[in-house]
């Protein structure tokens, strides 16, 4: 009882702090600059191809990047499930981009992958590649997002996978399952819920991409994401209601992505491939 009494106000304040800004945004979006209460902002957004296509641009970055990030993180985390040599060093290296922040990652990408960067020069010197443009375009954004989100995804999955009782794998091996059968029949069904959560998080973060799209992308064209559109309305045109409307559209897209991920997860569970409580006993 005493604990509850202490907790209620602080939790209420936190909720207010975290939830109200968004409720505010939704209401604001319904009051266009011209006055009144209407859906005018939404209509304007969808009728303007320059704005509406940001949804497609963002999705074409977020979806492949999410698949790539989750798949690679799953492979590496699964291979490392029983600990490997230099685990600590490798984990630290992976976490560097989080620690160093978006800007420095962007700068590092420009330096390493850019037209005068090391990678291009090495490839050219070896005669292995045409001078390909890897930065300030779609590829640059993909690289930046991967560098930022891979570590999160990897650490989440590693935690999830190493929480599964190793005796399950041992028991499947003795019963006649080779490494691939172990993965498909035992580990994957148990990991799937974790993969769904990690995928959902990466997708949502990818869909909100902003600084990377500006710094190593082509913010006026190929990588003009929906977050950039919202930013421009808010901080360049000072049209807060319009910016809020765009933000709401973005939120709806993110929710749609989550719904697809949940649907896939449930279908797998339905066909008996996936899930029945995680491995921790």
């Amino acid at each position, binding site marked *: 009882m005493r604990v509850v009494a202490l907790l209620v106000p602080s939790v209420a304040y936190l909720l207010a702090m975290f939830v109200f800004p968004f409720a505010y945004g939704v209401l604001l979006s319904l009051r266009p600059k011209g006055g009144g209460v209407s859906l005018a902002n939404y209509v304007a957004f969808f009728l303007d191809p320059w704005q509406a296509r940001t949804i497609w641009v963002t999705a074409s970055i977020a979806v492949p990047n999410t698949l790539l990030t989750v798949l690679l993180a799953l492979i590496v985390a699964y291979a490392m499930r029983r600990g490997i040599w230099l685990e600590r060093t490798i984990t630290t290296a992976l976490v560097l981009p989080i620690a160093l922040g978006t800007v420095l990652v962007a700068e590092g990408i420009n330096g390493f992958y850019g037209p005068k960067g090391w990678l291009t020069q090495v490839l050219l010197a070896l005669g292995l590649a045409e001078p390909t443009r890897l930065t300030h375009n779609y590829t640059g954004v993909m690289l930046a997002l991967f560098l930022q989100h891979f570590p999160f995804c990897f650490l989440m999955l590693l935690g999830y996978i190493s929480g599964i009782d190793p005796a399950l794998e041992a028991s499947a091996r003795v019963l*006649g399952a080779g490494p691939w*059968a172990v993965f498909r029949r035992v580990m994957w*069904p148990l990991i799937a819920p974790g993969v769904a959560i990690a995928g959902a998080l990466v997708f949502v973060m990818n869909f909100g991409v902003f600084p990377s799209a500006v710094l190593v992308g082509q913010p006026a064209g190929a990588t003009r994401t929906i977050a950039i559109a919202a930013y421009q309305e808010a901080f360049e045109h000072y049209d807060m209601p319009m910016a809020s409307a765009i933000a709401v559209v973005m939120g709806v897209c993110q929710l749609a992505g989550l719904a697809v991920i949940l649907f896939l997860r449930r279908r797998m569970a339905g066909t008996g491939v996936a899930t029945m*409580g995680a491995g921790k006993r």
Partner: protein
Amino acid sequence: MITSLAFRLTKRFGAKVVLDDLTLEVRGREFVTVLGPSGCGKSTALNLLAGLIPPTRGEIRLDGVRIDGLPPERRGFGMVFQNYALFPHLTVGANVAFGLVLRSRGKAEIAERVRRMLELVRLTGFADRYPGQLSGGQQQRVAIARALAVEPRVLLLDEPLSNLDTKLRLEMRGEIKRLHADLGLTSIYVTHDQAEALSLSDRVVVLCDGRVIQAGTPAEIHDRPQTVFVADFMGYRNFFPLTVASEEGDTVLARGEALALRGRTVVPLRPGDAAVAAVRPEDVETTTEPPGPNVVRGTVRLTEYLGREHGVEVALEGGPTLTVSLAHPVAVGSALALRLPPERVVILPAEGDAR
């Protein structure tokens, strides 16, 4: 049916020797128990046999053919784990069918075999439950059914009963014994419980710090322990350090400051050798004989009700304590004359570091 499983295994983790050249030949239909305290290397031995960890040195031959190069899935063994290790996402039926599905058996054959296996472990009707919905004993039975479904060439059991209640442990012990006999299995069982080792096995191997201390039939291990370590494990709860006074055949007389005991030897001893006399609480009897070798007097210090018997701690004249098990209650503080029958006393060599 196999004829023999012979192995010779050494395992080191870094500098630590976990198994030191463990050599054993198990015959077909034999039930062999590896008995030892936690950390003696007994689970490591089972994992090496199953192929789950690679040996540092050694070989495993099944009917003369080396199998230590094979991965676990190609050895055709069955294994029952201490924590059951049932697949939580599969039903009981699917758990039991797991090994059969991997062997690509026909649907009808699998269904029939799962039914038979569940009947065997008395879980008919549980096929559609999930492991999380079963009690500990039921989960253990599913684990056994799953291991047996593939008709394993050798069944490995890693302390399968240690997570169960006392009563359930007794029941499941009978179950394992019955299945081993009925199905003609070849089983290797790992445990720290001497009662399990004695009741289940054709042969017991006592392990300590990765080395075999003694191996033999349950009766040999129980009646003729060769070291204090084995005797301690086998329920000899009274140990008295003495010196051998005289020997005749396999009987010796050993003396100490407080008592003199005549007893059997398993390992030859000579007069003057430092020895330890071991006797079980149940083997001591009350007597009216006058004091002398094997007859001692003392005062009751503590009593314990054990149902049919009474555990009694007796402080002997001269210092040492004797734990005895008597059929009738005695009062704390009363005086007792006790006889330690020479045929029940074992005189062992004193080894400083034998434990």
